[in-house]
């Protein structure tokens, strides 16, 4: 439409410049630092080059780092399972009409806009020993002692519960948007053929919802693998290594121990793993899109 593309590039240039400076330059910089042995607090605080694989060779034998990745993946899968099942159920229930529906929906949206760090604070106040109502309640009614500051399993599951509280609404609302957009014809013909509700759900709703489900799974997995703020606020990664997810582990190694070179290598590997998972899901999405054409 416009004869010269120069105007177009001019409009685009500030965006490209900023994303280049704060997105691409840091990426290449961390790639570069990852090849060096660099610890500013060591006897020799300068960058030393000891071969390209120096940090990476150490990294693949670093059990704490590898277990933090495994922990992050486990966390992502566990929360995804609960959020998806609960969210699907709630989305289906929102298709029917019942009293106060829009009020319930509005309250359900609330956790989505609260900052992760505030969610962490809310749960800390709610469940910390000696203050929160939750440990008191569990103690009085079930005789169950909740002290996630000491018990590793409780800490992990407390974070799972917090994540479900925070992000199930996202799954619900996204699936609801998908469900409301489904065509009605297949449902009508299935009803004429005498299918019951369960059959309709399994053979019609689920297959038609696959594209939306993949989007939800994709976004939730990416976000769960990134989790830092809430965990930092609630447990600080402890007790021990119980809730030390990859992001928190990198933070501790880099900003407490000042392992710059090693931390960079970790960041790159972390990024790589995230990209691989991202890419796998993306190719699933694309191949499905093609098979439907």
């Amino acid at each position, binding site marked *: 439409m*416009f004869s010269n*593309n120069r*105007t*177009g*590039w001019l*409009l*685009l240039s500030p*965006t*490209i410049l900023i*994303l280049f*400076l*704060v*997105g691409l330059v*840091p*990426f290449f910089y*961390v790639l570069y*630092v990852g090849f060096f042995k660099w610890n500013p607090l060591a006897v020799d605080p300068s960058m030393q080059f000891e071969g390209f694989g120096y940090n990476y060779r150490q990294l693949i034998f670093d059990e704490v780092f590898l277990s933090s990745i495994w922990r992050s993946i486990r966390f992502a899968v566990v929360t995804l399972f609960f959020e998806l099942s609960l969210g699907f159920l709630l989305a289906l229930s929102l298709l029917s*009409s*019942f009293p106060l*529906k829009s009020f*319930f929906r*509005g309250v*359900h*949206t*609330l*956790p*989505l*806009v*609260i*900052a992760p*760090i*505030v969610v962490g*604070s*809310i749960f800390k*106040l*709610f469940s910390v020993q000696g*203050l929160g109502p939750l440990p*008191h309640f569990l103690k009085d009614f079930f005789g169950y002692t909740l002290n996630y500051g000491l018990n590793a399993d409780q800490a992990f599951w407390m974070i799972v519960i917090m994540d479900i*509280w925070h992000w199930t609404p996202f799954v619900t*609302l*996204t699936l609801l948007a998908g469900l409301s957009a489904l065509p009605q014809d297949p449902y009508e013909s299935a009803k004429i053929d005498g299918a019951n509700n369960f059959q309709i759900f399994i053979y019609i709703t689920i297959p038609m919802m696959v594209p939306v489900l993949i*989007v*939800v799974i994709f*976004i939730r997995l990416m976000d769960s*693998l*990134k989790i*830092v*703020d809430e965990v*930092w*606020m609630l447990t600080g990664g402890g007790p021990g290594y119980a809730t030390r997810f*990859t*992001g928190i582990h990198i*933070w501790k190694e*880099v*900003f407490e121990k000042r392992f*710059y070179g090693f931390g*960079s290598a970790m*960041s790159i590997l*972390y990024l790589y793993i*995230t990209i691989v998972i991202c890419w796998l899901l993306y190719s699933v999405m694309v191949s499905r899109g093609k098979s439907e054409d």
Partner: protein
Amino acid sequence: MKIRKVIGKISTTILWTILTLITLFPIYWMVLVSTRTPVELFGKPDLSPTFFQKIHWKNFTKPFIDGIYSDYLFNSIIVATSNAALVTVLALMATYALSRFKLPGSESIFFWTMTNRMAPPAAFMLPLFLLFSTVFKFGDSTLFDTKIGLILLYCVFNLPFAIWLLKGIIDGIPKELDEAMIVDGANLFTVLWKLIIPLAAPGIAVTSLLSFLFAWNEYLLASTLTSVYARTIPTGLSEFVTTTGTNWGTMAAVALVSMIPALIFLFLVQRYIVAGLTFGAVKG
């Protein structure tokens, strides 16, 4: 058949009532904690609401009037507002370019901007810290611990989101309208100002509100890239973790105050949140 329907309605309502209680109860408890003295919080939790006369205002005045938290609040407001404004303007320009010009490689540029959003911030903490504190220099001053640094940095996740959200809207405005204006002798600025901005106004408003919210809520990068002068309210909140013998009342008060924008925006953008969070892949 009718009875089954009624039972279904009742059980759905009960389910949602329970859910709403689960959602609200921890927030309700936080509000209670923010109104109480440390002595009142000791021992068995008291779930009854606090009378207005009995509110322990010191929880609020101590951090925000006597303490440093008013500065944090001010920084947060400046950073989030400026970032939202910057992102909206840049995204509008970029989206218009991507939507109306046939630029070679524009699809790849679009995809590249999106990848910035997906990357885990924890992987970029260290390089950003090093770059901000040593490499990006203007004379003697660095970007480390400055509001400008944060404002620019938050473009990493807000620009891709804003471009994605606006692209759907601007693509929906017929090109013929632009062409008609240009034939009449209008320049690019006039087209944007008189045509695109008025037609895309609701979308632009949502984009800037959500950008504000994301910038306001960001914690990890703010905490690593600031130390004294540019600390935002989420970083201030996290300072309660490390101190021994946390003053729970004050912490709850700070958390409550930092939640206010979220509560305001919830009513304004509720309809668009799904589209915003899924990158428009699913329309809300």
